[in-house]
Structures are given as C-alpha cells and as structure tokens.
C-alpha cells in the first residue's frame, strides 16, 4: 500500500531543478558578463582611441606653434622687422665702451666705489 502510494506521488526533485536553475543562472550571468566586459572593452578602446587622437592633435598643434615662434624670432625675420620699423639703432663705437676691470685679489663681492672720473670732460 505504502509502496504503491509512493509510486504515484511524483515528488518534485528540488535539488535537480535547483542545480539546473543555478547552472543556467551562472551561464547566463557569465554570458552577460562576457558581453558586458566586451562592451566595456569596446568603449574603453573608443575612449583610448579618442584620447590618443587628441594627444596627437595637441602635440601637432604645439609643434606647429613652436615652429611658428622659431620662425618669427629667427634672425632673418627680426632683421627684416628692424629694417622695416627703422628703430634707428646704432652700434656703439669701440672707443665708447668702458671696461671695468675685475679684481684679481681674490676678495669676494663686497661693494666698491666706482668712479667714472673724466666722463664727458
């Protein structure tokens, strides 16, 4: 009696279902994680690409500006500007240069009286 009653009960195999559900969930989570990570990788790759591009652009712009500064401050350009703007700069004649002799007594930087006697005489 008991035996036959047990046969027709069809008890639910909770453990097996749980295993399947858990396995499926793990697989699903793993799959979703994979897709999510793949997506993240793609996004970070895109950010990396954009930043690299920006870096190159900034470096290029900086290089271009640096070269422009070099060109504008080159001797050739400065001399052209000097000639064009007629600043009237005159080189100092050799006989108009006053040379102050260095002391050779090994004493330091103490203040000394300097006299240009004879100036404009």
């Amino acid at each position, binding site marked *: 009696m008991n035996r036959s009653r047990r046969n027709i009960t069809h008890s639910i195999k909770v453990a097996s279902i749980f295993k399947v559900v858990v396995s499926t969930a793990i697989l699903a989570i793993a799959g979703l994680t994979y897709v999510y990570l793949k997506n993240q*990788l*793609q996004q*970070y*790759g*895109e950010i*990396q*690409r954009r930043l690299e591009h920006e870096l*190159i652009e900034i470096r*290029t*712009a900086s*290089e*271009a500006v*640096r*070269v422009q500064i*070099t*060109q504008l401050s*080159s*001797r*050739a*350009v400065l*001399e052209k500007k000097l000639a064009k703007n007629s600043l009237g700069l005159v*080189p100092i*004649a*050799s*006989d*108009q*240069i*006053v*040379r*102050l*002799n260095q002391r050779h007594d090994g004493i330091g930087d103490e203040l000394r009286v300097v006299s*240009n*006697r*004879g*100036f*404009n*005489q």
Partner: protein
Amino acid sequence: MRWNEQARAVTVCFGLVGLFSVFSVRLIDLQILQHEKFTALAAEKHNHKQIIYARRGIIRDAHNEPLAENIPVKTVVADASHIRDPGAVAAAIADKLEMDPRDLADKLSQSGKGSKHIVLRTEIPEETAQKIRESLWTANLRGIYFDQDFVRVYPNGQMLSQVIGFVDHEHKGTMGVERTMQDFLQGADGFRYIETDRTGKELVPYRGQESPAKDGCDVKLTVDLGLQNIVEFELDAACAEFKPKNATAIMMRPQTGEILAMASRPSFDPNKPGDASPDQEKNRSVVDMVEPGSTFKIVTTSAVLEEKLVTPDTTIFCENGHFQYAGRVLRDAHPMGVLTVHQVLMKSSNIGVAKLALQLGEAKLYEYVRRFGFGQKTGVTLSGEISGLVNPPYRWSKLDITRIPMGQSVAVTPLQLVTAMSCIANGGKLMKPMIVSDITDQNGRPVANFTPETVRQVVSAETARKITSALKDVVSKQGTAQKAEVPGFRVAGKTGTAQKVDPRGGYMSGRYVTSFVGFMPAEDPKFTLLVLLDDPTMKEGAAFGGVVAGPVFARIAEKAARYLDLRPTEEIPPQPGANGLKKVALSTRNRD
C-alpha cells in the same frame, strides 16, 4: 497509427539531419577548406598596417638656435569604398583643397570602389584639415582621412643654406649636413596593425603587433649663428660692392678646428630648393678649388724655418723684381732688392719665396704641402668635399718649384686654406675641421660626441711664432694688407691675389681670385677667417687681396670681436664724433 507517428518522426529527423549536414558541409567549407581565402579577404577589408611617422631631428647652432625644423602638415586621402556620394563629398571639401568640385568628384568616382588610398592633396596645414573635418561632420559624410606628415623648414632662410642643405620630397637629405647626418636625423618610422569596422573606425581592442616610432636625433653644429650673421652680412656687402663671380668666407676656431661660420655666394633659400640653380647650391668652401696665390707662401716659409735652412733674419736677394729661371721670368708686383725671410713674407715677394723653395728642394716642399693638409680631404662632415690638386714632384715641370710656393700650379679648397692658417695660429698643430659638435636623442641623451681631433704637428710652436710675427707685419703700413687692420687688435694674416686659370690653358688677363686669410688677436687667436672673392670688378691693376678682401676681413673681424667680447689689446684711435668717454675707456684698460 503508431507506425505513422514513428515514420513522421524519422522523416523529420532525417530532414533535420540532412539540413544540418548541409549547414555543416558549408561550415566546413568556409571555416576549413576556404579558411585562408576568407581570412585574407577579411584582413584586406578590416586589417591595416598603420604607419607611425618618426619626427626628423632638428639641426641647431652652437647656442641651440634652430636651423632646421619640421612643420606638421596633413596629406588628404580618400577611401573610395567608404564614399557613397562622391559629388556631395567633393562639394563639401573642394574649396578647402582649392580644387575644382567636378574634377574632385571625377577623381573620387573614377578611382573605383576598390581604391582605399587616393591621395587628394599633400602638405595642407592643420587648420585646413580641421575645416575639412568639420564640413564632413556637418554634411554627415565619410571617406576622407588624413595622414600625418611634415615639411622641413629653415627659419633663417638663405643663412647657412649650403652648410645645412635641404631634403627631398621623401625627406631624405640631399646635401649639406642634412645629407651627411641623414642616418642620425631621419629616425625610424614605427607601425601598428589595426582592425577597423565597416566605417573605417579603428577597433582598439583588436590592435595587433605594434612598434613605436623612433624619432630622429638632434644635430648640433659648431656654427655660431651670431658670427654667421656677421659674416653673411659683410659678404653680401662685399658682393654688392665688388660684384665678384662668387665669394666665400670661413671662420674657424684654430685651437679646435670648429667652424664658427661658413658662407658662399651666390646662395639660395633651402625653403624653396626648386628655385635654386646648381651654382647657388654649391658649398664652395669644400667643393670648389682655386689657386691660392700668395696665401700659400706660409707653407714654404714655414718649411724653410722648420728645417732650419734659414732664420727670419736671413737675407735673400730678390733680383729687383726680375728673376729668370728655367727659361721663364718670374716677377714681383714691385721690384725689391735684398729682403730678410721675415720681409719676404711681409712684402709677399714671389722671387724671395721661390728662392726659398729652391733651397728647400722639391721633395721637402711637397712633403710640407701635404703636411699642411693640401691635396687631401680634410674629413669635415660636409657633403661633396674635394681634395684639391697637388701633384707629386715626379709630375712637376721644371718651373713648378718656383710657382708652387707662390700658390700657382696647385689648387686648394677654401677650407684647406683656412685650416692651414689655423695651424699657424694654433702653434703649428693642424686640427681636423669640425662642423658637428654633438648628436643627442629626443631625450637629450648623447648619441655621438665629436671632439677636436689633432691631425699632426706640422711645424714647431717656435716656427709658428716666427711666421705669426711676419704675418702681423703683413697687416701694417709696411705690409700688403694695411686695410685689414682692426682698431684695438693685432691681426696676423696673408693676402692672396691669384690670376684666374683659363680653362683653355694659361691665365686670364686682368681677372683675379683675391683673398685674405688671417687670425685675431694675433697673440691669442680666437678665430681664423678667410675671405675669398673670385673675379671682383675693380679697376685694372687694383684687384689685390689686401684691397678687396682685406677690408671685408677687417669689418667682419671688428664685429666678431665685439660679439665675442674680446678685450682690445691696443689703444683704439678716437673716431670722428666720439665723446669724452674714450678717455675713460683707455684709462680703465691701462689699469690691468
């Protein structure tokens, strides 16, 4: 009924098996049998080798002023496989590329859908590239891309052009330092294998092998742009005044052989190399040879003094300007009688120096000519250097022993001449000329360091001192180059006035190569300077080295002394219009 059910099930199963078998076969065909073909096809469509361009090194002067730089530019390329409407793309960008929209559309269409790299325009500035990007973005178009490139620029234009040289369209140095230092300057391009999506955008996670670019090294020259500027300015002034066929000036530091300035005329702008003629591109300091004339007399005089055959006070009879030897007459510019060896050099007597050479003998003369570095390349790192022409004694005519000492029957480069004079200034020690001082990588680490190199001790310091003494008197009222005097300094130097060689044989009448080579201050030389003007326009009989090249030397040397802050060793005569300040200058100087 049961059988029918089974039959249906079996039929469906067979059907499914058959269907999946077909799929499987196709899958095997695609994945295994045709694997190579489809991999290649996919790679062709999506995989690219991206070049990472290396930056060419910068050339700088001795004070790190840039002489050659790179301006970043873009090359505009189209990928036809990404362009759906060539007309719209052309309309959006044609004006920015300064192209006709129809021509551009044709170019984009005719290139076919398969063309992935159609070069539309090169060397466009960064700003234009940005405008094109914005236009395409606004019109929602794609298929136009930009390759990074650069243009070599020379900020100082013509200055030092023959020394620096220029690069060709492939960025390879074609002359000058750009050529000789090509291996250091060029660097090495890098690469990266990338995958792109169907729109041409890179898929960063699928990057393959990558090798970074190695930028070129920076090359530092020994040239001082301040001195170069002085030399070029005065050379231009001399060319305007004397209208020579060509002109050369070289300034060298005698103790090290460093070239401080080097200029040739005619010149060219390396930013526009296409406009230059081969004549303008020549660096005459190393590729041209001339008969040096009297500047060569230092060789024979040094040799006889070194061999102790004479002393500076030994007297030579200069035949009153008329010396017959081997059936030909040798003349002096002015008839002279008895001169000391010192005076022979000072007054530049052809006969005196010829007699000294006869005393020395052919073999010894040839030996000293070679020891001073003539007839062989100096080894300077400049392209196209020639060795000049010095024949060995067995090829000399009977006359050559009297002609070579006065700078005929030999041909030298201007650089050899200034190096030989530097040897005298440097106590008889011949230095190898240097134009490159060091090479550094992009992080400033030294890659190569060029140190001064002594070639040989040509004559003793004592002999060099005796020659210097005579050369000091050359630049005086008694000598041939009074106009080379520099106020406040003693100059030692030698004039040269060589008749121009006629290509058809003999010499050209009334046409000369005038030169002056000297050093300053004579007691402690800071620089040696050669000024050479080929065929200056002068009145008949006035084209002398002391008259033409001497004053140019003086002007350059005076400005160079100021630039280098050299302390005058002699009183500076008052100049017209100067105020009382001069008194102070003299009194303070005397307190040394």
